[in-house]
């Protein structure tokens, strides 16, 4: 039962995990603080941006995507692209009907 070479054998160190966790905690604190200041309509955009940075950290390090094959990366990109298109098309419909 041999696991496949590089992607499988690369082990994310405890230290790297801990750094990601710390970054996620800091970003959570930032997102709560940003919500505290009244940025009006821009507030939600800033919060979504922070959430996306957090999601990126989780996907790339915790979920190991950084070390996966280009094929898997492309598949993820296509899924996110599909979701984006669906969202954009819905807004084109609802905003201009």
């Amino acid at each position: 039962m041999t696991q496949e070479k590089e992607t499988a054998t690369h082990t994310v160190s405890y230290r790297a995990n801990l750094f990601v966790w710390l970054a996620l905690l800091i970003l959570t604190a930032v997102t709560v603080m940003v919500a505290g200041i009244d940025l009006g309509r821009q507030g939600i955009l800033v919060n979504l941006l922070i959430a996306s940075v957090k999601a990126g950290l989780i996907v790339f390090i915790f979920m190991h995507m950084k070390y996966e094959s280009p094929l898997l990366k492309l598949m993820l990109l296509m899924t996110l692209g599909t979701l984006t298109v669906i969202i954009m098309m819905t807004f084109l419909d609802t905003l201009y009907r």
Partner: protein
Amino acid sequence: MNTSGGEITVHDKHVDYSGAKMGMWLFLFTELIFFGGMFLLYAVYRSSFPEEFYSTSAELHRTIGAVNTVVLITSSLTMACSITAVKKGDTRLSALFQLLTILFALTFLVVKYFEWEAKIGHGIYPGSEALTAQGQGKIIFYSLYFVMTGIHGVHVLAGIAVISVTMAMTLKNRINKGDYIRLENTGLYWHFVDIIWVYLFPLLYLIG
């Protein structure tokens, strides 16, 4: 083992590592589109009722939401560490990390229970008299709140069930340094559940 008649030597069970992982990711993609539909509803209704979404969001308990965010992020850390441990060959430590992950997941659900309980105690739940008497935007916000956190909660429950199984397998050494794809895939699922919450928290709790 050699089969009779001098046929080919059969090696031990074939494990398709990258195939198993790709299968898990494909499942997560369907999950992403599934939750994506709900986020889409949220986005469209938020643009239709910005003021009501703004004021209703303020009725949710921000501190409780933040505490649960920290709990879930920490559970992701212990899950990631359980995989690091098993890859280093330390299965007992890995099982301990998985146990911690389950405990954090349970904590999340208990906090969520009390939060729902408080809202329902005030007569606010989908279809309730107190809620249907309110404005349309508020009804929609609360409906989305209950459906999205509810379905997310079901995913947390499923995660607890799956991690319990991998923990038992790790303790029996059926998940080990040479064969850990099931633990890795469980981890992928768990982190996905975490990511959904990373978006739910600001969208539901922080816009008010």
